[in-house]
């Protein structure tokens, strides 16, 4: 029942429009990757209590996948941004750091 703003169409949507898609910014490991790399890609999820980056799809809206940064404990949303990035945008990182000085960072 979260409300997230789709960064593509600007709609503030809730669970009637959004579909969740697990952790964001995973790096795909394909053929020739080591078992450890593949395991990390396939199975090792952070699942933190606190700042987390997630994939969401505006499934019953514009259909676009986007990414969200939020606190899994307080449900505070730091921002949403398009999926076509390798890591969170600098302004979202800065916002999280300002609000969560103890946060250890994205990596």
């Amino acid at each position: 029942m979260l409300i997230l703003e789709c960064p593509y169409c600007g709609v503030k949507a809730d669970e009637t429009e959004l579909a969740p898609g697990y952790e964001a910014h995973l790096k795909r490991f394909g053929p020739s990757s080591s078992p450890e790399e593949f395991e990390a890609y396939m199975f090792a999820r952070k699942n933190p209590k606190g700042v987390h980056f997630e994939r969401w799809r505006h499934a019953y809206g514009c259909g676009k996948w986007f990414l969200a940064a939020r606190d899994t404990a307080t449900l505070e949303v730091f921002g949403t941004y398009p999926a076509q990035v390798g890591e969170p945008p600098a302004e979202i990182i800065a916002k999280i750091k300002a609000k969560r000085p103890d946060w250890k960072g994205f990596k």
Partner: protein
Amino acid sequence: MSTRLQKGGRLIDRSSAVEFTFNSKRMRGFQGDTLAAALLANDQMLVGRSFKYHRPRGIVASGAEEPNALINMGTGAQFAPNQRATTTELFAGLTARSQNHWPSLEMDIGVVNGLFARFLPAGFYYKTFIHPRAAWKHVFEPFIRQSAGLGQAPTEADGDRYEHAYAFCDILIAGGGIAGLQAALVAASSGARVMLLEQNAHWGGRAPVDGDLINGKPAEEWIKAVLEALGKMENVTMRSRCMVAGSYDHGYVLADENIADHTPGDGRPKHRLWRIRAGRIIAATGALERPLAFAGNDIPGVMLASAVRDYVVNYGVSAGDRTVLVTNNDDAYRTAIALREAGLEVPLIIDARAEVTGDLPAKARAMGIRITSGRAVVKVKGGARVSGVAIGLQAGEGAVLEEVVCDVVAMSGGWSPVVHLFSHCGGKLIWDDAQAHFRPDSARPPTNQDGASMVFAAGAANGALQGDAALADAGRVASNVVGELGLKTRGKLAKAVVCSEAAMEPVWVMPQGANTVLRAKMWLDFQNDVKVSDVQLAAREGYTSVEHAKRYTTLGMATDQGKLSNINGLAVLSGALNEPIPAVGTTTFRPPYTPVPLGALAGESRGEIFQPLRRTPMHAWHEAHAAYLEPVGLWRRAYCYPRGPETHEQAVHREILNTRANVGLLDASTLGKIVVKGPDAGRFLDMLYTNVMSNLPVGKCRYGLMCNEQGFLSDDGVVVRLSEDSWLCHTTTGGAERIHGWMEDWLQCEWWDWQVYTANVTEQYAQIAVAGPKARQLLEKLGGMDVSKESLPFMGFAEGTLAGLPVRVYRISFSGELSYEIAVAASQGLALWEKLIAAGADLGVQPYGTEAMHVMRAEKGFIMMGDETDGTVIPQDLNLGWAISKKKADYLGKRGQERTYLARPDRFKLAGFETLDGSVIPDGAYIIAEGVNANGQRNTQGRVTSTYHSPTLGRGIAMGLIVGGMDRLGDVVEFNTLPNGTVKARVVDPVFYDKEGEMQNV
């Protein structure tokens, strides 16, 4: 005796009498009564039996916290169990029956449980029913099932109508007492959109009962003026009878509005469920009075002091002639004063506090009421009704100093704020030592998406228990909330004047040194029969966490969810653990605040509109031709088309034999159809499918497999090269939306620089499979395009017209016969279908359903997603290595399939099976192996995945997965059959019919 007084009752209309029945007894009340008030007016104090010991239970409270007065309401399709009599508004013709007794309320056989109370201690479920093992099935379980549960389950479908409503507001205020009204005034003055919801039919809460003065006038006048003012404001929505059930993430609020519980049959929906998004929530939900734990506090006639006062002031009902009051605070003296003013006897006020000095006690004294301080109720006398109290020292162990005759004991152990809405989303509580309760900690609130506080408690819910403090607190909180929204308030805050109260003193066990006999008669949870001794036992047995103790003793697990018992129970637990109360903490508060009918949650989503139904363009034709429809996802597909007296099995066999001999039509419109187009479409499909799709020539079809990244099969279907830059991907019926989402996921999130466009066109086309040796003849009769073997060979694709309709024709076969799948615009699907039926009449054309399709594909050894696959099967397991490209460097699932354990020789692999006796292997059967596993179960070496009677071959055929797969050809294995037999089968090639493919390639 409880009775109706000659005068009084601010909520009832004495000119309007209402008849109702309770346990088939005709009774009379007045318009405005609650059922509980009317029952008391008819001297019906006994209303039910407790859960475990079947002890007599009377009305305790006057509101939502009532644990005892639960009744079965109505009959037939209007029947509802577990309705609280204290919140049920009386109406003419109401029928109520008491619960949890046999044979009757007055004479209940289950009361013998009470004699065995020693043997039914806390956690008795876990201790008692262990040995002997057979006794569980034959003795314990039937007994528990017979005695478990309070109300009865309805036997008819709910005959009432329910609806959902959606709303948005800036500030939602839960609770329409004086704090809620004050908050609403402040919030509304800012121009913000305000919703004010009150669970009762009446506004104003307890203030009118308590006689508070607001702005120098009786509270009732101020309430009336405020309601009028708010009613005129366009930015304010007010609903009474609307219980805020819960607060959820990001300001989501659920509220249950009772519209027609009290006006059945007037055509309105019974309940309306509000689904609200609120910017900020103000919980002005008040406080609940706590019982006191003394021996016999569950005997009918022992009531909350506030409830006794409510019945006198609101309904003109006296719970009894002689009421003894027992309290640890000043508020309860209001009850004594109200009773005296109504002309009733109050022989004694027992105050546990050593000194009693407040203004209210002084007023009571002045009325001539005797007050005894530092005293306790040692025990209540009486069986089915209070007959008196024995009194001793609160500091003592229970020696009786004096006995007083009475028929009501009004108790007050102090007040606890209703913190539910604050706590539902993680708001934390702090312990208030002075008032001995938990209240919301505004420094640790539940938070919103912006990180700001989402719920604000105000008034009594915030620990400001008295009218003056509550009004001031609500004004302050509402002003803060308005300020946070960047708005300004206007107007002056109302001020209340109340009789001041001296400090209360916490009392958790009465008397404090009570012996074990007394403690075993002190009820904490009236409905579930949890006593002080049970909680202490749980602590001794090591249940030191409040959450564990709750589940072990069932404290607070009754339908009132611990509204009365929670704080008392954890105070007793903290005493037993010798830890301070805040260190023990509370159990988790979960929505709903009071029960919400399932009908309200379902709303309009029942029957035909429970979920959307997807219909193919030919759906109406199938229905008109007696098709038996089966659900496939949200679709309905024809399973078979029985003729006359045919069984489904006979119909399926006829359809198969006709398709194999003549020609059959299958409505294949539900197949997923996704167009993939663009300069990088080929490269993209090569990643998506295990085989190569980029080199598929224009005008050709190719079967393809899709896997997830773990390498397990996810979907399959035929891909068609429509043109140089576009492909059409067929998916399974259930997979269309999922696969389209999967494609978009990779295109948007991984390969976002690839130029590919996808469109799910499943519903834009109708698709008809025309299969059978006479399929070509049939199409030639329609005319319009060349469908010869030379122009349109097997696995070819052509566009043209048939019977004047533009079509795409694919030479693909899932039946093994000469087969054309014809796609046509959805709007022309029915027309083409009817033309095929008409033109094929003399060729013997018949429609066939999904079951015939399944059997025919199994005869051909074609796999089916969901039959041969279950999310743990890789293509190699199904001998589909030919459909996996060895040349491609990468595709989705390739790395997953390289995992070493997937190459283990003991994996189950696909083979065919033929029973030696020709019978059909049961669905879901396992292939048994030697020995047993660690659980004593027979080892297995495989399982059946598709099993049918083949009318073509006249015998049972099956596909299944077995260790060794096709290497086991010729082996005879055993499948289990129910209940405990086996059937022998030989491992064979899974292609049972036309192994060379001569039938489809003509």
